[in-house]
């Protein structure tokens, strides 16, 4: 185990950037502020446990969705974050609900959970209950609670980044920006979108406290990195936008927890936009309809193919930050929670088209009858 950061000296000292998978890791540059992030050991431990607990809860919830999907009980598609929980939960766990902003993408159940999402929100949406946050009008991974800081993504990849920027800019105008962070997750494939480019350039120009976490899982649907971009490492893009760059092994839970915490904390402290690139592998198909058989054996067997939830477990057990018993407790509690949520949502009615207010407008007086 490469616990480089995890010996007491480092944990209590300055967090140094490192990455096993990206040796060419880019030097960080804070143009507005330089921040030394200091974790006390207690903080690190609590943070790591928080990240890991969210991973466990999220994994169990998603495995449930997967089996409900196979049983034909899910409305719409199922896209899982399996293998990406360490990255995602590390983002959500470092954000403050009710204050910060989170724009999850399609593999961010763990981040949502860590950011405090009620399991019922997800479950209601996947099962088509009219009581979900989107009232069955939009589904599954698109759900959000924008007024509570969770952006409701549209499918068009890359388009959330400028939205997060605008939310923060609004707070700046309102004089409420201090101490806030907006974070968003995105895949390797989505970095090729014009929308991503414009959004990242925008937040960089405005020096907004944004953290962009790229989960480079080597594939966009079936398309490998080699057909997606030509730079050596996506982190090479950070400098071109004038944002700070951080590389991390996305399967190494403790490394994710720390690197992403550092990025979030730096943004919060006024260090400007932060870009984190985590390398890992999607442990499954693109969605549950896909078997991902195009992923070559050698990548599956590489470090990318490690399951971060296993890695995280070993890390916490080794450090003595979690016991087997406690883990079992967490798992049992999460299973119960999942079961409860599913039971509740399954009992709830779907939407009623006859009661539906068929208007896209908030200004209801402009609703027109179309025949």
């Amino acid at each position, binding site marked *: 185990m490469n616990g480089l950061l995890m010996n007491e000296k480092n944990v209590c000292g300055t967090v140094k950037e490192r990455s096993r998978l990206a040796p060419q890791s880019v030097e960080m540059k804070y143009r507005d502020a330089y921040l030394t992030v200091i974790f006390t050991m207690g903080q690190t431990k609590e943070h790591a446990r928080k990240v890991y607990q969210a991973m466990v809860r999220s994994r169990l919830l998603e495995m449930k969705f997967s089996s409900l999907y196979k049983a034909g009980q899910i409305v719409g598609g199922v896209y899982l974050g399996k293998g990406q929980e360490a990255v995602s939960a590390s983002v959500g766990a470092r954000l403050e609900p009710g204050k910060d902003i989170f724009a999850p993408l399609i593999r961010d159940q763990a981040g949502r959970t860590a950011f405090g999402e009620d399991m019922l929100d997800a479950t209601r949406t996947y099962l088509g209950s009219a009581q979900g946050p989107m009232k069955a009008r939009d589904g599954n991974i698109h759900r959000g609670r924008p007024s509570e800081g969770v952006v409701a993504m549209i499918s068009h990849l890359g388009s959330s980044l400028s939205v997060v920027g605008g939310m923060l800019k609004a707070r700046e105008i309102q004089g409420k920006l201090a101490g806030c962070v907006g974070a968003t997750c995105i895949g390797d494939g989505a970095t090729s979108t014009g929308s991503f480019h414009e959004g990242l350039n*925008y937040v960089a120009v405005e020096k907004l406290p944004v953290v962009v976490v790229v989960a480079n899982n080597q594939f966009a649907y079936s398309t490998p990195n080699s057909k997606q971009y030509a730079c050596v490492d996506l982190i090479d893009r950070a400098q071109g936008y004038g944002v700070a760059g951080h590389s991390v092994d996305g399967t190494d839970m403790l490394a994710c927890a720390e690197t992403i915490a550092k990025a979030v904390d730096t943004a919060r402290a006024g260090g400007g936009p932060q870009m984190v690139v985590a390398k890992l592998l999607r442990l499954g198909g693109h969605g549950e309809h896909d078997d991902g058989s195009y992923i070559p054996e050698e990548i599956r067997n590489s470090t990318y193919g490690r399951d971060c939830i296993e890695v995280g477990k070993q890390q916490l057990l080794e450090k003595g930050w979690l016991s087997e018993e406690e883990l079992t407790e967490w798992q049992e509690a999460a299973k119960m929670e999942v079961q409860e949520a599913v039971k509740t949502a399954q009992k709830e009615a779907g939407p009623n088209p006859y009661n539906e207010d068929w208007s896209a407008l908030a200004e209801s007086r402009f609703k027109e009858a179309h025949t």
Partner: protein
Amino acid sequence: MSVTYIEAIREAQYKALETDERVFLYGQDIGEFGGAFKATKGLKEKWPDRVMDAPISEDAMIGMAVGAAIEGMRPVVEMQFADFSSVGFNQIVNNAATHYYRTGVPIPITVRMPSGGTPGSGPFHSQSIEAIYSHYPGCIVLTPATVSDAYHMLLEGIALDDPVIYCEHKLLYRWLKSDDFEGDGLPIGKARITRPGKHATVVAYSAMVHEAVRAAEMLQSEGWEIEVVDLRSVKPLDTDTVIASVARTGRLLAVGEAFPWGGVTAEIVSRVVKEAFHLLDAPPMRLNAKDTPIPYHPKLWAAHRPTPESISHALKELLAY
């Protein structure tokens, strides 16, 4: 004192900034420079933090406005030309316009679209694309034809809780003048009878209202009294006022400067025939621009769009039925 259409737009933004601190302006070169058409001249000076220059990133500009709206602001975004909204299109129709239906959180943004043809401007600085934003659900689409409408509808639009596509016609910017911008108090959603008549109804909007009035004047000498209806907004579309006019005249010509396939004029005709078929004494007609890109040369441009001559020509055909 005489105020122009573009001054009315500037004044409305001034007023909005002054009276509602949730309002801010965002666009390319709109800050110190005052905008490509000077619609924001002097505003940055007065509100340095609420008048902001944007990079050449229309997608991000709209995305940013959506985000700010979620947080309770009321952004007014200037597209340098309506034509460039094609690269902010996705954020408008798929993000801003769907957001309220999907999440229950309204997106009160206003997108100012310098629209319409002017001589020598060519295919990418002349477009009238109100129909594109009307076809998708979720936007309100305004098309002011007068100085006072330019003023009041912009203010009213900024106050609405939905995404507003505000199509301002560049040909009217400096040419159209008024003594004031008091207006007649018509709210968004109501069309106006610009010119009363009894033999035929021309329904128009934006700059075409003026061309329609000219055509009506041309026909007056021949004894025809043409009623001109100014739609003011194309979505919502005030079918009632149009039908009331058709009830008086029995004849309908819908005129628009946009491309001829689909669009506002087709929507008008379709609504009128559905609701007021029995009131029609003649087949309802449309007149639009031609089905080619808008040509750059003024001679081609003038023939590409409806003119007083082509409108009166169409009216004669309508009246002869």
